[in-house]
């Protein structure tokens, strides 16, 4: 059975297989510190065509393109925050896994503190003075 499958695979003529996007290799930057900065940013940018993945671990074609863009800009000396802003300018906040800090996300960022304070107050009521 295995041999049969292998033979079948090898027999498939190339044009029958669906055309693929031109492959882009992931070439890490020469400078390890720069590559580390690039990777850190790739962890925080969202793949546009995936179901909730960062561009660092997605095989999607557009994620590959985004990785190339990030690496190129980092090696050109751009700050990661500038690059993030560049992507957000084109796709909106959705493309960044770090939610923006604005009035409409105030509750989101305040939530941990609010819960801590609220919980702390309830806790204090339980402690003998």
């Amino acid at each position, binding site marked *: 059975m295995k041999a049969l499958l292998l033979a079948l695979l090898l027999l498939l003529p190339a044009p029958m297989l669906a055309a693929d996007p031109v492959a882009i290799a992931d070439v890490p930057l020469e400078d390890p510190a720069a590559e580390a900065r690039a990777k850190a940013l790739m962890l925080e940018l969202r793949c546009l065509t995936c179901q909730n993945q960062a561009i660092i671990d997605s095989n999607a074609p557009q994620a590959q393109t985004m990785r190339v863009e990030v690496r190129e800009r980092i090696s050109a000396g751009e700050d990661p925050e500038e690059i993030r802003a560049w992507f957000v300018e084109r796709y909106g906040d959705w*493309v960044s896994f770090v939610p923006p800090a604005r009035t409409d996300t105030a509750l989101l960022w305040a939530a941990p503190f609010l819960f801590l304070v609220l919980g702390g107050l309830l806790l204090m009521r339980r402690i*003998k003075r």
Partner: protein
Amino acid sequence: MIPELGHFALWLAAAAALLQSIAPTVGLWRNQDALFGLAVPAALAQGVFTLLSFAALTWAFVVSDFSVALVATNSHTMKPDMYLFTGVWANHEGSLLLWVLVMALAGAGVALAPATLGPRFRARVLSVQGLVALGFFAFLLFSSNPFDRLSPAPTEGQGLNPLLQDLGLAVHPPLLYIGYVGLSVTFAFAVAGMLENVVGPAWAKATRPWVVGAWAMLTLGISLGSYWAYYELGWGGWWFWDPVENAALMPWLAATALIHSIAVVMKRDALRAWTLLLAVSAFSLSMLGTFIVRSGLLTSVHAFAVDPERGLFLMILMALYIGGALTIYAFAAGRVAEGRQFAAVSRESALVANNLLLTVILGVVLVGTMYPMALQAAGGAQISVGPPYFNMTIVPIVIIMAFLMGIAPLLGWRRSATAHLAARLLPAAIGATLAVVVAVAFLGVRGIGALLGFGAAVWLAAASMSILVKKGVTLNSAGMALAHLGVAVTILGATVSGALQREALVAMRVGDAIQMGPWRAELMDVRPVAGPNWTAVEARLDVRRNGESVAVLRPQSRMFVAPAQETTEAGRAGWWTGELYSVLGQPDGTGQWQVHLWFKPMVRLIWLGSLLMAFGGMLALGGRVRAPKPKREAQMSGSPIPQAA
């Protein structure tokens, strides 16, 4: 024939659940013993019939009976035998049947266990359990029937998603469901406790085994899911704060808090209203989790085949059960709450702090998961809330908890002496400081988060081990210490594998080698291989350390046959010190292959820690068993002194 029998058994089980929910309710209302005495037989009948139904579906899968629509859409004769079996629950209908099976077996368990709070209470618990089960039976029978037939029957099935053809992922649902659904017993105990007005130490003692058992299985289930994502999804991440992951984590957080607050009810008859809320919330979050992953409400890389109609049905069930329980709570809690105050330095206060911090984490996970949807619904922008948010907000709380977890088990109940604390914790303090120094000086760690992780892990590990080595430690204390040690181990694994990871990404030809730290990986060959229902391109990497061959990694780029889908299989080799992890990328057409290689030190500790947690939890159920030792020493150490229940 057998699928029809299975379907019939399912109806019988639903009928038993109906009887189980109505008869005791009427019986308790009218005080007719005969009626509420029906609870136990009904529960047993529900268990037996559900088991028969599940067996029938399993049979259909194992023999590949494609006249059953579910088998036709989710299975294939070329699937390896094991996945024929585990494929039963790798789909919506089958997994729901597994859900009700666990519920029915749990109910039967309650029916067979000694009724420490009396037969009335047990009947009440079973009636709540039966009512909850009834909703899910209705869901199955009216909207998600696993036994639907296809006519004419196809000769071959559509196959199972290749990502699911994996042992880890096959075992993950049963573990998770035993956890989720086990919490339904806790839910039933809480509602019954409110209705019968018996919430107190005896109630807590009876509920505790169900909480800890469900919690332990949930720990294992989540851990297995994380491990699966690590080795299967192809880049070595193990937690992404994805909505489906969060959906499983939330009931776990509530259950963990519940384990701790229930101890306060047992020992001090305090925190009753809060514990009731936690007990109701834990199963509510289980239902919420199931709803989230099946309704298509949130985007997730783990999402099941989604159907808003199923979501609606589940939502109605949630409204009925959670709404009902919380309504009862609104009336009963005031009666039950005692508002007792605790000494500032005491075991009770520490447990309250523990609950506070766990609940804050739970709140943050819930808010973070729901916020994008809420914001968009309110007409606002589309945002993404991902790992950076959750890590930034939750990791500091975990560090604080690890610190407190070192101290709390050493505190006594009521008012604790503090004089002994410094002495007992000195080794842990020294160890933690040493760990940080070593990390900075010898390992080159600079990040503040990583250093705190090192310190917290060693602190907690040392403090927990000091409890384990004490003479005369009870199973209760030993279990707790082991579970806390498990937390320390997980924190250590996460910290070390994150901070000290090595990585190399190179385009290689056959014969080339990469040097990554002390490892040298040579690409020996790349050739086609085949499995039962897949073919793959496999690379062979010979890895040497200091000249000696230590591992052969075989990463694959795999193409499954039915359905046609491509996956990457990481080539791994591991020791207790860490794992080598390799992924084969695309060829670039010139004979070069992209090879991605990592060394992840101590990464296995992440899941080993959770094994310890689950084991420790189960051990603690053993209770008061211990070696004989003087009573005075027991008082000073703060470990629980045997008391009459």
